[in-house]
C-alpha cells in the first residue's frame, strides 16, 4: 500500500515536470509536483516508525520557515542566486543523510552496494553544496565574479578527484568510518575549487549542472535507504538539469568542458583587444528621444543591466509611449541574456509586456536589417560583433544578435567597462552607435520624459 502511494507521488512529479514545460500549464504543473512532494512527506511520516517526533517536527518547521521566508522576500532579479542557494541546501541534505547512516552503525556490516551509494551521495551532495554557494556568492556580488585562477589549478583539482576516489574505495572495501568523513571534507573543497575558476557569466550553466548533480545525490540517497520515490525524483531532476545544461552551452556555442575548464574571460587566444582610446558617440536623453521618434520600428535588446537596475517597468512605459506614436516595438531575447535562460522573459512578464512582442534570437535576428533603431539596455556580450568577425575572440562563434545591421544603435550602459565576460565590444565604437552612459532605469525614464516633451 505504501509503495502504491509513493508511486502516486512519483507520477505527480512526472506530470508536474511535464506541465511545467508549457506556458499555460506551468503553474498548475508546479502545484501538482508540490502536492506530490507533500504526499511523499506524509506517507513517510505515517509509514515509518518514527521515534523522534520532536526532532522531525522541529526540522520541518525550521526548514519551512527559512525556505518560505527566503522565497517570499527574494526579488525577481535575484532569482538565479536564490535557485543556486536552494540547490545547495538540497545537495547538503543528501550528503547529511549519508552521514547519518554512517553514524548509525558499523560500516563493515553494510553490503558493498549500500557503501557505494553512501559514498556517492556524500561526494556529490558535498560538491553540490559547496559549488552552489560559490555560485551564489559570485552572483550576489559577495565574491568577485571574475574567474579565480592560479597555476596548477587543474592538476590540483585532478589530484583531489583521484584522492576522493581513493578514499571512496577505502569506504567501500574496508568499511572505514574515518575515510568517509575525509571523503566528505575533500568533496567540499573540490566543490569550491571547481567553481571558483568559472566566470560569473557562466554561472547559469554551472547552476544548471549543479541542479542535475543534486538530483543524482538524491537518487544515491535513495539507493542508501532503498526508496523508489527518492530514486525516481532524483533521476528525473538529474536528467532535467543535464538537458538544460546542454541547451545553455549550445546557445553560447561552447562545449561544457570549455565552460568548466577554460577560465573564460581572462585572455582567451587573442585576449581582450585594447580599444579604449577610440572615440565613442555619447548621447543625451534628448538624442535618444529624437532617434526613437523618427523610427518606424524599434527593437529593444534587454540584458542583465536591465535586471540590476530593475528597469523592466521603465522599459515598458517607454515602449507604450512609442507604440502610441505608431512605432512598432519588439523585444529581442537572446537565449543567454541575463543570468539564466528565460531570465529576461520573467522580468518582462513582471512588467506585463505582451507575449507577442517578445522575439527569440531566430525570430529577431532576420528582422534587424529592416529595424530603424535598436535600443540595447544593459546587454553586451550577446550583441558583440567580435563573436562573428574576430576568430581570436573568446566568444568567437557564439550566435549573436547582429544589431550593427540595423539603422541605428543606442546602447544604454553604466560605463564603457567590458561586460561580465570581460571582452571589449567593437559595437560601442561603431559609427551607427550612440552610447548613453547611465543606470538603465534612469536612462529610460529620462528618455521617456524627453520623448514626451518633443
Amino acid at each position, binding site marked *: 500500500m505504501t509503495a502504491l502511494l509513493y508511486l502516486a507521488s512519483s507520477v505527480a512529479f512526472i506530470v508536474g515536470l511535464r506541465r511545467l514545460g508549457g506556458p499555460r500549464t506551468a503553474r498548475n504543473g508546479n502545484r501538482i509536483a508540490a502536492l506530490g512532494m507533500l504526499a*511523499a512527506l506524509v506517507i*513517510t511520516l505515517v509509514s515509518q516508525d518514527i521515534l523522534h517526533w520532536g526532532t522531525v517536527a522541529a526540522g520541518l518547521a525550521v526548514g519551512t520557515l527559512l525556505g518560505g521566508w527566503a522565497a517570499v522576500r527574494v526579488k525577481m532579479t535575484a532569482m538565479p542566486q536564490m535557485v543556486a542557494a536552494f540547490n545547495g541546501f538540497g545537495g547538503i541534505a543528501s550528503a547529511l543523510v549519508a552521514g547519518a547512516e554512517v553514524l548509525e552503525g558499523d560500516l563493515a556490516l553494510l553490503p558493498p552496494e549500500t557503501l557505494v551509494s553512501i559514498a556517492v551521495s556524500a561526494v556529490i551532495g558535498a560538491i553540490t553544496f559547496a559549488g552552489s554557494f560559490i555560485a551564489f556568492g559570485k552572483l550576489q556580488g559577495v565574491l568577485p565574479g571574475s574567474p579565480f585562477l592560479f597555476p596548477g589549478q587543474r592538476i590540483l583539482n585532478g589530484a583531489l578527484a583521484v584522492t576522493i576516489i581513493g578514499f571512496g574505495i577505502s569506504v567501500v572495501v574496508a568499511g572505514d568510518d574515518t575515510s568517509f568523513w575525509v571523503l566528505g571534507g575533500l568533496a567540499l573543497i573540490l566543490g569550491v575549487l571547481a567553481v571558483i575558476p568559472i566566470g560569473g557569466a557562466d554561472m547559469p550553466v554551472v547552476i544548471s549542472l549543479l541542479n542535475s548533480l543534486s538530483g543524482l545525490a538524491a537518487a544515491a540517497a535513495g539507493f542508501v535507504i532503498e526508496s523508489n520515490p527518492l530514486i525516481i525524483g532524483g533521476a528525473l*531532476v538529474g536528467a532535467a538539469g543535464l538537458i538544460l545544461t546542454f541547451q545553455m552551452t549550445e546557445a553560447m556555442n561552447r562545449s561544457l568542458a570549455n565552460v568548466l575548464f577554460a577560465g573564460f574571460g581572462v585572455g582567451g587566444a587573442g585576449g581582450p583587444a585594447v580599444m579604449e582610446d577610440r572615440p565613442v558617440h555619447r548621447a543625451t536623453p534628448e538624442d535618444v528621444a529624437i532617434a526613437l521618434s523618427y523610427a518606424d520600428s524599434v527593437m529593444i535588446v534587454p540584458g542583465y543591466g536591465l535586471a540590476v537596475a530593475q528597469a523592466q517597468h521603465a522599459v515598458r512605459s517607454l515602449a507604450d509611449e512609442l507604440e502610441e506614436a505608431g512605432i512598432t516595438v519588439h523585444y529581442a531575447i537572446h537565449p543567454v541574456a541575463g543570468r539564466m535562460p528565460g531570465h529576461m522573459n520573467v522580468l518582462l512578464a513582471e512588467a506585463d509586456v505582451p507575449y507577442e512582442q517578445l522575439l527569440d534570437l531566430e525570430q529577431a535576428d532576420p528582422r534587424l536589417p529592416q529595424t530603424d533603431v535598436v535600443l540595447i539596455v544593459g546587454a553586451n556580450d550577446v550583441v558583440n560583433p567580435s563573436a562573428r568577425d574576430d576568430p581570436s575572440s573568446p566568444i568567437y562563434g557564439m550566435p549573436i544578435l547582429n544589431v550593427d545591421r540595423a539603422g541605428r544603435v543606442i546602447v544604454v550602459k553604466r560605463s564603457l567597462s567590458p561586460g561580465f565576460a570581460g571582452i571589449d565590444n567593437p559595437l560601442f565604437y561603431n559609427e551607427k552607435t550612440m552610447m548613453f552612459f547611465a543606470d538603465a532605469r534612469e536612462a529610460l525614464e529620462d528618455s521617456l520624459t524627453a520623448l514626451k516633451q518633443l
Partner: protein
Amino acid sequence: MSPLLVGITVFTLAAFVGFEVISKVPPTLHTPLMSGANAISGVTIIGAVTAAGLASAPLAEILGFLAVVAAMVNVVGGFLVTDRMLELFRSRADRERAKR
C-alpha cells in the same frame, strides 16, 4: 530481483522519462523549470525524515535534523519561488479575473 537491481532499473527508466518530458520545453520557461526541478530534488526529504526519525545514535539524530532542515528549505523555497515566477506569466486578463 534484488533491491539493488530494482533500484537500478527504476533509476534508468526514470532518467529516460526525465529526458523525454523535458526536451520539449520552450526557452522562456527554462528558469521556472530549473527552479521547479530543483524543488523536486528536495525529495531527499524522505531520506532526511527517515534518518532523523529512526536514528539510534544521538549524533545521527543531529545530522538527520540538519538534513530535514536543509531539504525542507529546498522544497518549500523551491516550489514557492517557482510559483511566484509563474504567476508573472499569467496574462493580464487572467489576473483581473482573479481579482473579482
